């Protein structure tokens, strides 16, 4: 456990416990407590990472491996956007408002646990906590769709947990320890790695399912579409990334793919990543529901991260980390905007919308920023992370993968252009006449995240320095 960041786990947990009691008769207090908790945490984290003196020193003063700090910041940032959005989005008379915020805070705490832990068993515990809270959060929307999504989530992620715990047992038997360092040291030695790799592969498979990588992706569109709008932003923006993708990157570095140990696993992982990019993008082209399209887009973007993690060279890991963070920013914007559309126009069916930019200019323009970043259009942040991934692939001699990954950006752009055409661009539809722009507090999270996207794109050298520091620390 990275003790320096323990407070970021405990405080939201404490808030989660306090909220049901303190806010029993005053539902608005739940909003306030949740937001204040996350805001305070985020301000603290920013102070840790972005003090002028730290930046000037090339981030050498960052405690720990830097990766945890970055991801905890991402968790808090997305969490804050979601709670802030929810405070204005949720129906006044929602019966279990307190439970909703408690669940979000518990899931923030669990994610903090996932990214700060240093052994597999603790990782497993927090992953399970996260799975249970996600399950409960999906069912906050007690319509049929919510239940369907939740059940699909349940039936796919719990077998995944079983695989993970089986893998952990194999690892325990063959390695004698469950700490990350033990695995790292073992992989750096010359001992034949058979059973250890097998155990790691089982764990990896579990996380691949949880990350929604093709061919285990079928649960994500239903879960995202069925869930309550801010919940899908929370799930797609950060939860599946932490509970699945983060662990894949972590394992990839521990297994030292760049050394050529566990080569088969690395090859399979890259293949699945490429497959996800392709399948996700092509499936997204055919969607008519905004949220479902975003879900498939997530699958495709996760493919890029998995592809890079599978390669595992320092440059690829940098690209993967950068893209993971970027994905959290742009997917949150898009999902929150879909929630705004749902609130204002009452639907996310793209066939029924059109010309929304006239009535909802802010929603439209933040979507444009986010989608261009997703498609890797410069100078936004998504361009740089994709470029790093593609350079890494090319450098490793995997030119086919590099070119394919690059050209699938055009498919990404194509489905987003289609979406933008149907929803925002174009002549005013009836829906646009009757749906006003949502209120400023609902826009604030999307605008904030769009600003982060632009800033990360323009301040790429700083972020690069940070990510490079992280890659050096976690790989060496």
């Amino acid at each position, binding site marked *: 456990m990275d003790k320096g960041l323990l407070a970021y786990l405990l405080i939201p947990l404490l808030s989660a416990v306090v909220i049901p009691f303190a806010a029993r008769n005053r539902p608005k207090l739940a909003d306030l407590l949740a937001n204040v908790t996350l805001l305070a945490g985020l301000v603290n984290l920013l102070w840790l990472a972005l003090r002028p003196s730290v930046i000037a020193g090339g981030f050498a003063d960052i405690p720990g491996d830097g990766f945890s700090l970055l991801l905890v910041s991402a968790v808090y940032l997305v969490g804050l956007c979601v709670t802030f959005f929810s405070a204005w989005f949720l129906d006044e008379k929602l019966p279990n408002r307190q439970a909703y915020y408690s669940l979000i805070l518990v899931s923030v705490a669990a994610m903090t646990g996932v990214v700060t832990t240093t052994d597999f068993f603790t990782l497993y515990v927090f992953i399970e906590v996260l799975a249970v809270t996600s399950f409960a959060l999906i069912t906050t929307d007690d319509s049929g769709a919510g239940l369907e999504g939740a059940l699909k989530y349940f039936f796919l992620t719990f077998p995944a947990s079983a695989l993970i715990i089986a893998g952990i047992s194999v690892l325990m038997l063959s390695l004698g320890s469950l700490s990350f360092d033990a695995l790292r040291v073992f992989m750096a030695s010359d001992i034949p790695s058979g059973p250890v790799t097998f155990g790691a592969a089982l764990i990896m498979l579990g996380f691949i399912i949880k990350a929604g990588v093709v061919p285990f992706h079928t649960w994500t569109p239903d879960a995202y579409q069925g869930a309550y709008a801010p919940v899908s932003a929370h799930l797609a923006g950060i939860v599946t990334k932490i509970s699945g993708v983060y662990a894949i990157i972590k394992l990839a570095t521990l297994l030292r793919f760049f050394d050529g140990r566990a080569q088969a696993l690395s090859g399979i992982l890259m293949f699945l990543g490429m497959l996800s990019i392709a399948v996700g993008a092509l499936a997204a082209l055919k969607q008519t529901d905004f949220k479902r399209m975003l879900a498939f887009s997530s699958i495709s973007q996760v493919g890029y991260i998995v592809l890079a993690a599978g390669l595992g060279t320092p440059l690829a890991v940098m690209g993967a980390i950068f893209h993971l963070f970027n994905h959290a920013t742009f997917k949150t914007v898009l999902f929150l905007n879909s929630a705004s559309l749902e609130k204002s126009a009452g639907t996310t069916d793209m066939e029924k919308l059109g*010309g929304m930019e006239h009535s909802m200019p802010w929603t439209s323009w933040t979507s444009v920023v986010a989608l*261009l970043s997703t498609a890797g*259009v*410069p*100078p936004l942040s998504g*361009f740089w992370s994709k470029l790093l991934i*593609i*350079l890494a692939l*090319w*450098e490793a001699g995997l030119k086919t993968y*590099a*070119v394919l990954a*690059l*050209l699938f*950006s*055009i498919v990404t*752009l*194509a489905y987003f*252009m*289609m979406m933008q*055409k149907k929803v925002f*661009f*174009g*002549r005013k539809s009836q829906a646009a006449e009757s749906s006003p722009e949502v209120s400023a507090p609902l826009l604030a999270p999307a605008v904030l995240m769009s600003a982060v996207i632009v800033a990360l794109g323009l301040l*790429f*050298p700083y972020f*690069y*320095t940070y990510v*490079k520091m992280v890659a050096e620390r976690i790989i060496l």
Partner: protein
Amino acid sequence: MDLPIKLLTLAVAVPVFGAFLIPLAGRLSVAARNTYAVLLGLATFTAAAALAPTVLGGQTASFSLSFPRGFDFILHADLLSVFMASISAFVSAVILIYSLDYISHYENQTEYYTMVVLFLGSMMGLVFSANLLWMYVFWEMTGFASWRLVGFFRSDRDVAKANKTILVTVFGALCMLVGIIMVYFDHGTLDLRALHGQAISYAAAAFILAGILSKSATLPFSTWLPDAGVAPSTVTSLLHAAVLVKIGVYAYARIFGVTFAAPDAFSNTVLYLAGASALVSAGAALIETDIKRIIAYSTVSQIAFIFLGLASGNKTAFVGGLLYILMHSVAKGGLFLCAGIIEQNTHTKDITKMGGLFSSMPVTGAAFALCSLSVMGIPPFGGFFSKYLVFAGAAQNGSLPVLLMFFVGAIMTLLYLVRLFYKVFLGEPAGHGNPREGSYTMVASVMALALIGLALGLLIHYPAVYTELLTGSLGVNLQ
């Protein structure tokens, strides 16, 4: 910072960052926004043109910001970039002035001005970038601005064509990025100054060429450009004539003309592609009946002549190609803006419904005729000299099939422009109620462009000296 470096950064920073303040100016008042937008255009042109004495004096100016992994942001002013930047900024400024009236009764004006100025800024960035990666960055930014602009009228058809435009050009750009990555791993740098005179592999050159051809709407990527004609005339004028298609040509001149030594077989392929493009699009222009599509096809055809000049591999042709960029920007910009006046006042783009407009729109008609003569290449207009030099240079290299293709293309240019002028301005009026002449600023802008086209022909000495100096000092692998 020295003055040239200040001018250089201003020429890029003023329009790029200034564009994002246009929505704020729009909050103040319409007049403030319009004035501000035009001022941005003029300031950009002034800054770019003011660099001319520096580069003519044999100096260059560079500004750089350090980025990791050799992705340094480098702005570099030399003869070629100042030449190109001045032309683009000048035509853009004229278009902004013309827009004041043209666009004044449509929706989304604030977005229009923002995107036009952003486009101009990205173009400046692209032209001055001396790092291939940053050329790509600005390249995509121009694509983004043109996407919003082509979809300006917002009907399903407009937006679909806007999407087609951006998808075709971004596909090309991604191919170019593959080529850039190849260069990066072959040479270890993307700094064009360091790459001067190096060899380039066929694969990298082919990928970069795909990007160039898609942006300059040359075969096999030409189809998006006539479709983009759904946009307002100012946009088609800006995109087609002055700036967007010239991006591809400029990139060709920059990458294969003055940086890498392009292999001969590669240049020959480009010549044949360009020849085919010239013929096919001239043929299309002969049978089309939509005035803007005719001019758009004509642009595709003329761009091929520029490629002929740039790819022929000798100095005469290269000088001709550069002059062609200048002459064509001015003349084609004028034609598009004339088409805008005609379309706005007759409410149609179909030339079969026009005819006899000369009596009601004499000034527009005269400007249209002057610009057409320049595009055809009739002396003493500027277009004559550029076309002559291109042919003279190409003849020296003596590839007869190529020459024949372009010769036929040039004759067809004559035919379709005469046909267009006849159908629109002469002959019997066909179902229109003698529309009014365009407004004062609009007519003044087109007349200015027409007269500049004539003046450039009469004073051909000065641009010719400039381009010869450019070719002599920067050209690589030219005979």
